[in-house]
């Protein structure tokens, strides 16, 4: 797949359609809440998000702001921030007089779930009833919008509205595969055989990062390849205790340990960030990179001197992925009704189609509008996952600090501090320390 500038854009939109194919609301006209009367002239709605101006979401949210101002007569005070900044300050900000009226926020138990359980973001049940957002969200996407009284996702009340999707897959360097006569792996045996060929030729086949999320997601994918939906529910939703000596985590950690010893993964990854790993792939230094759809647009634009392809992880039904970040209404929002109108506009076909055309993966777009071949490639890959009901969230969601815990154990697995057994035991300790407090 050669670089195509506009390509990334439409991709996910179609996939999202697959998600929403069974929903009743997907083809409905835009926001019912848009009166067009300008009844809110003189009012100001403070909107906060952390998307880049040129990103798919940034473009779409700007469009939503334009529509909102035209339809309501109100003015939007847009405040942009950084993902990490909001992640670390939302608890205080959303419960203060400086709180925005509506904000994009990270989903999952440890983030939106935590804020929901401590009353810092508002219950959106009445707005879901009023606007029918629930009908637009496919199962798997809507999981991240509901949280129970303990902040555990998947059940309880609505606290957020997801507008797009994301998932994790394997990026591969087609030119390097062709050079060594390799085919795209469809089984684990083929994948390991390919990796061995690269090692035999002095190339480390799989780049990743243990200082940040990529290796943790790889660990989770390996566990998912041995798991069923109930295991995901147990791990993410605490429906049953997780067996930290079970086949899922044992396979994941021991496979990684094996791959490190065989040189499939470099020991350097313990000191590498996600950016370092992505750049190794983009620079053509590494033939494979397992990471998320959020890299896709950048790959299309930054890879100029080789062809790359994408494929789902072999021999798995379940895949890391979910709805994207969600819109929430902080407890201290001064205009919650207007905020709900704004959210409804972000769900309108006009905004959702633009999101798809700009490289995002909308949840309520018109698939026929997406024609770019690169977009279609990504969407078809996403459809494969959704056809199997495969979205399985992310490994760090079970506890507020499991992201750091998982990264630290991955680092230990790489540098030899842990073997597979002790790595699982340590992860189990971190996990149980928190989960025992919410059960």
């Amino acid at each position: 797949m050669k670089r195509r500038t506009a390509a990334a854009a439409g991709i996910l939109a179609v996939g999202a359609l697959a998600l929403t194919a069974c929903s009743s609301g997907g083809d409905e006209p835009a926001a019912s809440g848009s009166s067009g009367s300008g009844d809110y002239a003189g009012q100001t709605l403070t909107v906060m998000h952390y998307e880049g101006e040129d990103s798919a979401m940034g473009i779409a949210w700007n469009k939503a702001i334009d529509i909102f101002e035209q339809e309501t007569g109100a003015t939007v005070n847009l405040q942009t921030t950084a993902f990490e900044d909001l992640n670390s300050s939302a608890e205080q900000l959303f419960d203060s007089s400086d709180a925005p009226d509506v904000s994009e926020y990270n989903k999952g138990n440890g983030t939106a779930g935590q804020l929901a359980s401590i009353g810092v973001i508002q219950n959106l049940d009445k707005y879901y009833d009023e606007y029918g957002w629930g009908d637009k969200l496919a199962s798997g996407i809507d999981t991240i919008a509901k949280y129970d009284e303990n902040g555990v996702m998947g059940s309880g009340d609505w606290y957020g509205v997801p507008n797009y999707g994301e998932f994790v897959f394997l990026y591969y360097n087609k030119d390097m595969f062709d050079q060594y006569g390799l085919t795209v792996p469809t089984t684990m045996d083929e994948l390991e055989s390919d990796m061995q060929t690269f090692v035999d030729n002095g190339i480390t086949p799989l780049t990743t990062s243990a200082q940040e999320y990529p290796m943790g997601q790889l660990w989770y994918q390996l566990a998912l390849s041995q798991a069923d939906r109930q295991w995901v529910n147990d791990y993410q939703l605490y429906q049953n205790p997780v067996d930290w000596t079970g086949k899922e985590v044992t396979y994941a950690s021991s496979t990684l340990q094996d791959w490190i010893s065989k040189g499939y993964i470099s020991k350097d990854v313990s000191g590498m960030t996600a950016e370092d790993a992505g750049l190794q792939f983009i620079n053509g230094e590494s033939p494979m990179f397992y990471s998320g759809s959020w890299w896709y647009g950048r790959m299309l634009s930054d890879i100029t001197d080789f062809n790359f392809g994408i494929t789902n992880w072999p021999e798995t039904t379940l895949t890391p992925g979910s709805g994207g970040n969600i819109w929430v209404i902080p407890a201290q929002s001064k205009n919650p009704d207007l905020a709900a109108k704004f959210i409804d506009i972000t769900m309108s076909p006009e905004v959702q189609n633009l999101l798809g055309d700009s490289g995002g993966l909308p949840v309520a777009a018109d698939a026929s509008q997406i024609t770019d071949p690169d977009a279609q490639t990504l969407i078809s890959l996403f459809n494969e996952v959704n056809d199997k009901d495969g979205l399985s969230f992310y490994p760090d969601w079970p506890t507020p600090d499991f992201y750091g815990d998982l990264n630290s154990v991955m680092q230990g697995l790489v540098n030899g501090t842990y073997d597979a057994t002790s790595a699982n035991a340590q992860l189990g300790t971190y996990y149980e320390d928190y989960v025992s407090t919410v059960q």
Partner: protein
Amino acid sequence: MSSSLPLVREQRRKRRPAEAARIPERSGSKLGYWLYFIPGAIAVGIVIFYPLVRNLRLSFFHWKGGRAEEHFAGLDNWIALFSDHEFLQSFRNIFLVVIAMVIIPTLLGLIISALLFDVVGRRFSGKLSSFLRATYYLPQILPIAVAGVMFSWILKPNSDGVLNQFLSAITGSTVEINWLGGSYGTAMGSVMVLMIWIQIGYPIVIFMAALGRVEPQLYEAAELDGANWFQRFRAITLPMIRPEVFVVALTTTIAALKVFAPVFILTGGGPTKSTYVPSFYAYNEFIKGPDKGYAATIASAITIVVFVVAVIFIQVQTRAERKDA
């Protein structure tokens, strides 16, 4: 030059009675002083004491944050703290941080400032000495985030890293040391080098300012008497700048106990949480942890240690001053 000094002193002496006469007599009430004191006291109360007391109080509660209820925990958090491997590891690391931020920079600062003042300044030129002092101080004005990112480029684990490239060039074989993620030793060592590099300019500037008080004739006389550099350093430099050494040691020790940014930027606490320091651990628990009460306990423990260390330092300094007097 020197002959004019007594004249100046004489003039000052003569002016004193007139100046004193212009100061208004006290009204008999100390209310005026208290009026000046109140704004500062209110500010200190709001900014320092209220959060301090709140934080200490919170350390005796379990609290999920936000609008969640607080549940009294008694000494649970404090008991848990002393059996928490990550906390104990973070405190052990403080000793290494003190070496990197206090001991090495202070010792190097003493030697470098003495050399700059006594050797470079006297034998070459004051301008060269000032220039070198400024270059040592440069890392201090660099934002720590910039310094951290720059070091992370230098310390990249594979052959892309500048340090690995340099080592490869001088050894003639490929060096690929995983500085930040390979082991505790290399990661903590890297953090310490960053701290030393940033910190070194601070004592040099303070000590050189202090050395400005020393009459150059003292060094010249000692030199004529046959004292070598080390003897001049021990007999003149050290005693003259002892108060500044105390100040530098106190302020850098407090900074070391609270250190956060170098670890946050360079290693993120890794590998395997081995480079955690107390402030970083407290931050992590406040932002991402499930119990803000426990995070408050960590922060309170740091505060208590800083307070105790500061009191000890000040007492030692006071005793030394009394002895001199």
